[in-house]
């Protein structure tokens, strides 16, 4: 049974205009998203820039105001409520940011950065706190003396690992990782991804992995949702999405990913152009007259696609 | 665009109303009233009391404010206690003088600041740059009245290069070339003084903008097109750096008005600044309040002007 459910989550921003600066329209940044989180699993949220994937992550953790919909955590409604600073939800859902540099106070030492969540959510003695910080540094594979340093003294990959250490400080259940490796070089990215998998295995964490990189998402995730214009166009297990994509937009994304097989690039290009052509020709099948994504229809128990007359089967 | 401008004007109304309230109350809190200055050992105390009663100074402050503001709404700014004339006519003749002074000052400020800022930015860290920065800090540190007094003493009294007070040589026939020259001649020294002190922010801003713009990617693009460096500066760097300066223009109005208080007082130039100081001394409430309202209005207008200029010079910004 899932420990957390998100139902019909919407984040709309008003557009103001006219003489009296009234609300004339809405930006549907997130427009009705439903998800469930199981223990120990990784959920991918994929889409191109502006599709609303980051807003979704921020809304879940409470950095964006939710317009409508609900988040239920262990049976309790936690949407937009004035949660106490040390509520279970705040402790159990943590976030890792893309830019590890700007997400850490440059004037604080690593020990203070890591101690902050510990002080917020637990009542440790200074001694216990110190031990916990050493432990955290050991978990992320950094030497103990790192705690006396400032964030800028670390490389990008090291800082991202510190960000993870901060997120896991209070044994969270879910970590929202917003493009955690997009700013990193390939070899460093590998390090951070491996490491995220290690702590997941060890502590039974769940991840919501937000990324534009379909390769990384495939590598990391059990379940994947493809997002476009604030809605899911397709949702399913990793295998279903990659082996049997149903939505034209998923097709388009998949065919655009560069592959490290130079021999087959011409065939891939032909296929890509065909998909692009289909994408232009078959718009009406997949989007309504206002360009909105249709509601999701089930194909199998786990695979959903947003189109009219979706055929079941497989 | 017109809608926005109209809306901004409407928003000014409550702002000016609150401003007038604050100023009126503060002016009333000052010790003394317009008739305090008239009291001599020979004056009849009863006469003063009568005058006070006549002028409505004994009414409750709310009534006084109401009387005054209802006049303002009908376009009547009231009557000056000291000059016994309508406030609008007094301000009217002074405003023209201040306008002339401010205009010349503003022109000089930009004439001095833009070349200096551009040079400092382009030849960053050179001797020239360091001298300009030093100048801009010095001018920032010197209080207006100090430099005004020094200039007045040196160029007015010692060398007698410039007139020391007034707006025009009274012996001249209005309308003649000499008359206009004399007007210009009278505002020249105050304007130069003012301009020398008013350049700091523009120089510093422009210098930083130019240094900043030189490192931008679009400058690299321009260089990669093989455009000569001179042209890269004139077509890409300067234009982009001058943008914030253009937007700054509206705000200089505020600075000029503030500065005019000192400059006009020291140089004996009968403009609004001098009038302001005089009316405070003589507790001429209606003039004080009217002037503060006018200054407030011009400041708000300046910021609106800045927004409009910005939307004209920067294609990325649209007011609608």
């Amino acid at each position, binding site marked *: 049974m899932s420990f957390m459910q998100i139902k019909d989550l919407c984040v709309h921003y008003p557009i103001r205009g006219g003489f009296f600066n009234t609300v004339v329209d809405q930006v549907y940044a997130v427009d009705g998203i439903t998800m469930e989180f199981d223990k120990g699993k990784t959920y991918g949220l994929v889409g*191109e*820039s502006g599709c609303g994937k980051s807003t979704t992550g921020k809304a879940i953790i409470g950095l964006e105001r939710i317009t409508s919909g609900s988040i239920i955590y262990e049976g309790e409604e936690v949407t937009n409520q004035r949660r106490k600073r040390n509520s279970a939800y705040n402790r159990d859902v943590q976030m890792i940011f893309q830019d590890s540099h700007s997400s850490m106070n440059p004037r604080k030492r690593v020990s203070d950065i890591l101690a902050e969540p510990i002080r917020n959510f637990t009542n440790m003695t200074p001694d216990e706190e110190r031990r916990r910080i050493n432990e955290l540094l050991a978990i992320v594979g950094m030497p103990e003396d790192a705690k006396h340093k400032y964030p800028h003294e670390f490389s990008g990959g090291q800082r991202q690992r510190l960000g993870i250490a901060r997120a896991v400080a209070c044994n969270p259940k879910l970590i929202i990782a917003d493009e955690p490796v997009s700013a990193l*070089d*390939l*070899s*460093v*990215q*590998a*390090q951070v*991804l*491996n490491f995220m*998998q290690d702590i997941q295995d060890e502590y039974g964490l769940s991840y919501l992995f937000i990324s*534009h*990189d*379909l*390769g*990384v998402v*495939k*590598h*990391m995730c059990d379940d994947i949702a493809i997002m476009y214009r604030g809605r899911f166009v397709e949702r399913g297990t*990793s295998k279903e999405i*990659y082996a049997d994509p149903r939505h034209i937009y998923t097709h388009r*994304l998949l*065919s*655009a*990913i*560069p*592959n*490290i*097989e*130079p*021999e087959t*690039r011409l065939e*891939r*290009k032909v296929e*890509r*152009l065909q998909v*692009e052509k289909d994408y232009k020709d078959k718009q009406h099948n997949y989007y309504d007259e206002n360009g909105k994504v249709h509601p999701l229809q089930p194909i199998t128990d786990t695979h959903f696609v947003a189109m009219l007359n979706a055929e079941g089967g497989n | 665009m017109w809608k926005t401008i109209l809306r901004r004007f409407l928003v000014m109304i409550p702002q000016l109303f609150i401003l007038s309230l604050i100023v009126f109350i503060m002016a009333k809190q000052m010790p003394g009233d317009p008739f305090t200055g008239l009291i001599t050992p020979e004056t009849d105390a009863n006469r003063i009391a009568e005058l006070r009663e006549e002028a409505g100074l004994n009414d409750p402050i709310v009534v006084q404010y109401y009387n005054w503001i209802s006049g303002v709404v009908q376009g009547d700014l009231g009557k000056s206690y000291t000059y016994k004339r309508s406030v609008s006519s007094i301000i009217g003749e002074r405003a023209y003088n201040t306008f002339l002074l401010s205009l010349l000052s503003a022109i000089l400020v930009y004439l001095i600041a833009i070349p200096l800022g551009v040079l400092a930015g382009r030849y960053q860290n050179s001797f020239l740059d360091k001298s300009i920065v030093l100048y801009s800090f010095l001018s920032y540190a010197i209080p207006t009245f100090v430099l005004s007094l020094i200039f007045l003493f040196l160029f007015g009294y010692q060398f007698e290069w410039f007139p020391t007070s007034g707006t025009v040589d009274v012996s001249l026939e209005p309308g003649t070339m000499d008359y206009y020259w004399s007007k210009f001649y009278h505002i020249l020294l105050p304007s130069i003084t003012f301009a020398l002190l008013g350049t700091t922010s523009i120089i510093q801003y422009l210098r930083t903008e130019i240094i900043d713009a030189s490192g931008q*990617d*679009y400058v*690299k*693009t*321009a*260089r*990669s*097109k*093989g*455009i*000569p*460096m001179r*042209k890269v500066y004139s*077509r*890409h760097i300067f*234009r*982009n750096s001058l*943008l914030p300066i253009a937007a700054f223009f509206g705000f200089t109005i505020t600075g000029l008005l503030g500065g005019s208080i000192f400059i006009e007082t020291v140089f004996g130039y009968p403009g609004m600044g001098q009038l302001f100081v005089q009316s405070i001394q003589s507790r001429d409430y209606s003039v004080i309040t009217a002037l503060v309202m006018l200054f407030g209005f011009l400041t708000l207008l300046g910021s609106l002007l800045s927004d409009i200029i910005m939307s004209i*010079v*920067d*294609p*990325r910004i649209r007011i609608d």
Partner: protein
Amino acid sequence: MSGANELLEIKNLSTSFRIKDDFFPAVDDVSLTLKKNEILAIVGESGCGKSTLATSIVGLHNPNNTKVTGEINYKGKNLVTMTDEQFNNVRGADIGFIFQDPLSALNPLMKIEQQIEESLIYHTKLAKAERQARVLQLLEQVGIPNPPRVAQQFPHQLSGGMRQRVMIAIALACKPPIIIADEPTTALDVTIQAQILDLLKELQAETESGIILITHDLGVVAEVADRVAVMYAGQVIEEAPVVELFRNPKHPYTRSLLNSIPQMNSEGDKLNVIHGIVPSLKNLPRTGCRFSPRIPWIDRATHEDNPTLHEVAPDHFVRCTCWKTFHFEDEGGSVQ
């Protein structure tokens, strides 16, 4: 120079930056040749010197804190020794440059038409009307719908993909035989990236020009490159035709990189991690194999004292001899 097909010959090029009073080479003794009608990819991680190399080719470094030595030979002239004025005749006319972020690389205050027209003003004798016609033709060529409208627009009014097309139009304006594209698709979404890469490839074939493509993305390399040079710590450590590089990578660094790509079929597996970190400019090892500190389990004796490039197969060059005995840490023993 050999062969008439060679467009640009880079010989022993070094570019050093001044830090305090010392110069540190960000590009160290790089020799490469760009041929006509090919895309040469230069790939590497941040700090490997690939962007510095690109900037050196067009001479856009600040001469006050940069020292460039070696040769860049183009049409019998050495670009390195040119004055800035002489170089201005080459930039734009003979070498076009495409930047990573098309939003910041376009002047926000100038209309698209003016920005494309600029290089025509300085490099051609076209009249105003002819230049405008050429601008429209260029916009058409890079696949922009409704060129007359776009020509009168400002950069912020266009989407990211359209802006990058405009950048390409700027680079192509004077039909330069050489184009340098510095991470041209890094700032773009994957679907747009695919379109831009297709466009680059098509334009290159059409104009028979030579493109130097700077990128960190091996996927992009596999999609468009003809030849690849891999850079590490300022040096080219491997150079090969594209299929050869992906099928028979030799240098330990290239192999490690390829193994750390999260692939479509790698779920669950552990990605390869390269030990340690990329040395900073100030801490570059000045002698010996620069990659050796990151493969400590490999016997030091297998490295060369002064590693040079060796031709291990036709047109396939590898620096140092350590590749012969290299194996991944968990493989144990020699597998080569």
